[in-house]
């Protein structure tokens, strides 16, 4: 017990030489699992959960509509609004928007356009039904209500 020579070093620091490795791993994770955001979200989006999810076939045949309460209520009010491609649109503009989306596709693929409706859980059915009516008039009848996976304990997998 008395054989220690000289001073004993009192400060031991945790080696941080592996910090870049950890951070790079996180970085690679995000690079692989995410995609670059194409439109800025102007509306609140708490997407509801569901279990009977279907997947969209091809990204190029999808057009997105976002419905919900605007994020900045002082500027836009707190009534639910419809957003398409970074701007708010009215129900009457939907037909025009649909034909623009269809024009971007090849002739043969126009009928396969799916409109993905990303609707906030608290939005009311009224505005959504108006959007649906306009989509029916514009002949864009394939609809996907966006939903997140729900773990459904009550049913068989």
């Amino acid at each position, binding site marked *: 017990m008395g054989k220690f020579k000289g001073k004993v070093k009192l400060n031991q620091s945790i080696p941080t030489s592996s910090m870049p490795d950890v951070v790079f791993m996180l*970085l690679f994770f995000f*690079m692989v699992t995410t995609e670059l955001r194409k439109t800025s979200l102007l509306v609140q989006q708490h997407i509801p959960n569901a279990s009977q999810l279907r997947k969209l076939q091809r990204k190029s045949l999808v057009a997105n509509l976002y419905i919900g309460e605007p994020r900045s209520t002082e500027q836009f009010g707190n009534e639910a609004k419809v957003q398409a491609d970074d701007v708010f649109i009215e129900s009457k503009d939907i037909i025009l928007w649909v034909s623009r989306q269809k024009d971007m596709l090849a002739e043969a693929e126009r009928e396969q356009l799916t409109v993905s409706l990303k609707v906030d859980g608290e*939005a*009311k059915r009224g505005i959504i*039904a108006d959007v649906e009516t306009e989509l*029916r008039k514009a002949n864009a009848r394939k*609809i996907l209500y966006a939903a997140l996976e729900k773990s459904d304990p009550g049913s068989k997998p």
Partner: protein
Amino acid sequence: MRTTPEIPSASMADIAFLLLTFFLMTTTIANDRGLMIQLPPPPEAQPDVEVKIQERNMFKIQVNSSDNLLVEGNPMADVSDLKDDIKKFIINRGVDPASSDSPEKAIVSYKTDRGTSHKRFIEILDIIQGAYYDLYAEQAGVTNSRFREAASDLSDPTNKQIWEKGKNGIPMQVSIAEPTKIGN
């Protein structure tokens, strides 16, 4: 002899953090999943032919503006049995005189109010579609999730076979009615 001079790698962590912050700010986890529906043709396009649908071939589900549920005229607070009720209705095939004649004639009528929340709408629609997908999966001999997977990619022949076998004789007839304006 001097050791070869090394490039100081002390700032590696800083660069990594910068890149990480950039990706966190500019990316989003994509969501391409949801409940798929085919909307009916536009209201003016259909001639107003009143097709007589018998009471027994219609399974009425209604939701009001306070998200309360009415199934076949009776209030339902707990939805855990709803899916089984719908399934029993669809594959009745005339056994119960108060229930449907055949799956081809069976229609699930889903009526909401303009004030119904989207969350509730999706919850019930999920149950209705669940009933149909369960029946399809059973008929095709696969699990519900396998059937939906197959439905999402019909270019593969195995999937197409499963899809056709499952859907045979049971069209997904869900009539989503124009919402009522009664609520606030």
